[in-house]
C-alpha cells in the first residue's frame, strides 16, 4: 500500500472502490479497442480520457489491513498506542488465559494424583488456598505479598474505567471524494481509518481486562495475592509439577518430574534412570521434551531439550488448552516409562550390550543390580517389567 501511496499515480474513487490505471498488452488492447468492448466491462471506467479498472473496496481494505499488511499495521498500532498508553514495564502483572489454564486446569490434575486427594474436582478458591499453603514457606512470599497489594492497586489504576473514556477519535471519514485524485491523497484517510480501528480494538481489550480485574476483586484478598504472586514471579513447582515463564506476557513451560525409575533390558538387567523434567510449552505444537541433559532409549542423543519419541497415534496438539497440555505431558512421561520394550525394536537405542554401529548413547553407567535398595524397597519401580 505504501508503494501505491508513494507512486505518484493518479487513481479514481467511485462508489467506495479504488480504480487504478488500466495496464495494457495486445490482448487487452484488442478486447477493449471497440467502444462496444468497453461497454461490456463494468469494471472499467474512462476518466479524463484514461481508462481505469476497479480494484479494491476501500472499506474492505481498511477492515482487513492488519491481515494484508501485518507489519505496517503493527508499526502504526505501536505508534498510535504510544501516544495513549505508556509502555508496559518489566514488572507488569499479566494474568493471562494461559496462566489461568495452567493454575486451574493443569496443576490440579497432576497435583491431586500425586498428593492423594479425593477425585472430586477442586474449585478455583480451593486451588488457591492449597497453593498458598505450599508457598507460604517461600522466603520472599511475605514481602512480595505486601508489594503486590500496592502493585495491584497500581495495576487497577491503569485499567480504570476512565481510561476507557479516552477521547474517542472522530468518526472515520468517508472514503475520499469521488473522482480523479493523486494516490498520495489517500494517505490521510487511511491514517484516520486505521487509528479508529486500532482504538476500537484496544478499547475491547481493555474492557476484557477490566472484567478480569473485577472477577479478581470478587475473591478474598488472601487468594488474590496468591494469584498475583504467581503472575508476578511466573514460576511454581509443587509435588513434582511446575511451570516457569518462557517469555512475556503469557507463554510458559509446564513440566512434570518423572522421579527416579528403572527399565530392564532383554536379559532382565536393570537400569536406573535419574529424575528429569518432561515439559511442554504453551507455544504450539505441544510436543513433550526433556529439559535436562538426559539419555534414554527413546531420546536420540544425550543432551538437554530433546523431543521424546512418542507414539505415532498421538498428534501433538496445535492449540494450547488445559486438557491438551495434560494429554501431551502424560504422553511424554508415559513414553519414558512404558513405551520402551526390551523385546521390540522401538525408539532410537537399545539397552544392553548389543551395540549398533549408529548407537551413540551408552547406558552401561546406569546399570544397577536387582538388589539395589531402591528396587528392593519398592521405591524405584521397574516400569517395563510386565512379567
Amino acid at each position: 500500500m505504501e508503494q501505491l501511496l508513494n507512486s505518484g499515480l493518479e487513481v479514481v474513487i467511485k462508489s467506495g472502490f479504488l480504480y487504478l490505471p488500466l495496464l495494457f498488452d495486445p490482448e487487452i488492447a484488442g478486447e477493449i479497442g471497440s467502444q462496444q468492448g468497453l461497454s461490456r466491462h463494468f469494471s472499467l471506467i474512462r476518466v479524463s480520457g484514461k481508462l481505469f479498472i476497479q480494484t479494491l473496496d476501500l472499506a474492505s481494505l481498511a477492515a482487513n489491513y492488519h491481515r494484508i499488511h501485518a507489519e505496517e499495521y503493527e508499526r502504526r498500532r505501536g505508534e498510535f498506542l504510544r501516544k495513549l498508553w505508556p509502555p508496559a514495564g518489566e514488572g507488569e502483572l499479566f494474568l493471562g488465559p494461559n496462566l489461568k489454564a495452567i493454575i486451574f486446569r493443569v496443576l490440579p490434575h497432576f497435583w491431586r494424583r500425586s498428593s492423594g486427594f479425593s477425585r472430586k474436582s477442586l474449585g478455583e478458591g480451593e486451588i488457591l488456598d492449597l497453593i498458598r499453603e505450599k508457598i507460604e514457606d517461600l522466603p520472599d512470599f511475605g514481602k512480595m505479598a505486601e508489594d503486590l497489594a500496592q502493585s495491584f492497586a497500581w495495576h487497577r489504576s491503569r485499567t480504570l474505567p476512565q481510561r476507557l473514556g479516552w477521547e474517542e477519535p472522530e468518526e472515520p471519514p468517508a472514503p475520499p471524494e469521488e473522482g480523479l485524485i493523486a494516490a498520495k491523497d489517500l494517505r490521510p484517510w487511511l491514517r484516520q481509518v486505521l487509528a479508529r480501528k486500532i482504538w476500537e480494538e484496544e478499547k475491547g481489550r481493555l474492557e476484557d481486562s477490566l472484567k478480569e480485574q473485577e472477577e479478581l476483586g470478587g475473591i478474598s484478598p488472601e487468594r488474590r495475592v496468591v494469584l498475583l504472586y504467581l503472575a508476578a514471579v511466573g514460576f511454581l513447582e509443587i509435588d513434582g509439577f511446575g511451570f516457569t515463564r518462557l517469555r512475556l506476557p503469557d507463554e510458559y513451560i509446564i513440566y512434570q518430574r518423572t522421579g527416579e525409575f528403572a527399565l530392564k533390558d532383554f536379559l532382565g538387567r536393570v537400569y536406573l534412570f535419574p529424575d528429569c523434567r518432561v515439559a511442554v510449552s504453551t507455544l504450539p505444537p505441544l510436543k513433550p521434551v526433556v529439559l535436562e541433559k538426559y539419555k534414554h532409549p527413546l531420546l536420540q542423543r544425550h543432551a538437554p531439550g530433546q523431543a521424546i519419541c512418542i507414539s505415532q497415534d498421538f498428534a501433538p496438539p496445535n492449540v494450547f488448552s488445559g486438557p491438551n497440555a495434560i494429554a501431551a505431558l502424560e504422553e511424554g512421561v508415559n513414553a519414558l516409562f512404558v513405551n520402551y520394550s526390551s523385546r521390540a525394536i522401538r525408539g532410537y537405542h537399545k539397552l544392553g550390550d548389543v551395540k549398533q554401529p549408529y548407537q551413540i548413547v551408552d547406558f552401561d553407567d546406569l546399570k544397577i543390580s536387582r538388589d539395589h535398595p531402591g528396587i528392593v524397597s519398592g521405591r524405584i519401580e521397574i516400569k517395563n517389567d510386565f512379567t
Partner: protein
Amino acid sequence: MDLKRNFKTGRAQEARKKLFLPSRFNLVSSIVKAYGLDNAFLRLLDRVDERAFHNLAKSAKIKEKPGLTLPLFSLATEAEYLLTAAIMEKLDNPYLDNARDPEELVLSAPLYRRNPALPPEVLAPRHFAELLAEELEK
C-alpha cells in the same frame, strides 16, 4: 500402417513441451520501460537515414550485446503501450525479436533489408551494429 505411425508421431510432437519465447510486444515494451523511451524515439526513427546507419555501424565494430531481463508477460501503461505499438508498426521486421537495446531496435530494419536470412543463432549473441558493419563491408 504408415498413417498410424504418422498420427502417433504427430501427437507425440504436439504433446512435447514447447520452448517458451517472449512475445515481440513483451520484448519491445521491456526496452521501452528499461530505457525510458518516449515519443522522441519515434521522431528519431523518422529522421535516421542510410548515412546514420553507416556511422552507427562503423562506430561499433566490436560491441557487446547488452543484457535485458524479460518478464514472462508484460503489461504497460497506456502511453507505453501506444509507443510500443508504434515502434513495432514502424520497424516491422523479425529481427526485432533479438533486439536488446534502442540502438538494436533502430538497426534491426537496415540489417534485415541487407540480409534477411540471418538465423537467430547469429542474431542472439552478437550486437546488430557489429553485424551491420559486416554486411556493409561485403
